[in-house]
């Protein structure tokens, strides 16, 4: 499955890109989190959440391959 991942704020600073495509057999958000922490060790010290189809999702949620975003803490207002 090909996953399209968007990065924001301090996380995009770490990855060096706003989005990337990842080819992977991962099933759940937890799997994705593991892949991200392996690829970007600096994510370990960061507080981040994952959104799928523009909704925050829990670690046990199944990935559907649609729009995935990795979000640092919110700072609106």
């Amino acid at each position: 499955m090909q996953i399209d991942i968007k990065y924001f704020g301090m996380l995009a600073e770490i990855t060096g890109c706003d989005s990337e495509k990842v080819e992977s057999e991962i099933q759940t958000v937890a799997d994705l989190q593991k892949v991200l922490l392996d690829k970007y060790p600096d994510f370990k010290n960061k507080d981040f959440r994952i959104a799928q189809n523009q909704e925050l999702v829990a670690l046990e949620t199944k990935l559907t391959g649609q729009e995935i975003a990795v979000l640092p803490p919110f700072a609106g207002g």
Partner: protein
Amino acid sequence: MSEPYKNVFKEGAISSDFIANSIAKHQSKTDIGAHNIFLGQVRADKVDGKAVCAIEYSAYEEMANKKFHDIREATFDKFNLTCMHIYHSLGEVKTGEICLFVFVSSPRRKEVFKALEYVVEAIKADAPVFGKEIFEDASHQWKVNS
């Protein structure tokens, strides 16, 4: 794919003229008795002796506009409001400038107080908006809502 939600984002600071114009537009709505307006202004916070001189805002815009839409719907459900407007800056907003403008109106004042606080807290908690605090020496740190 996704619905075309109203875009709440504005490039740069929100001007006092824009706010005035928004207020003036409500003069024709003569069932309104009370307006309540929240304005977020960028503070010159000091960190290790360096002062913030601007915040550069970015957002996951599609998700944020959907969240702002959800917040609007939930607020209209909970409170008796005549109208509501939300604007948030993107890009650079200097200290002393306005980055958030929330405007609620109702026939009655009790409603606007509760509604405005509800909306502002929901925006802070749920809107995927990110802020890079830029210091005088061009260094930066990422803002986190408290």
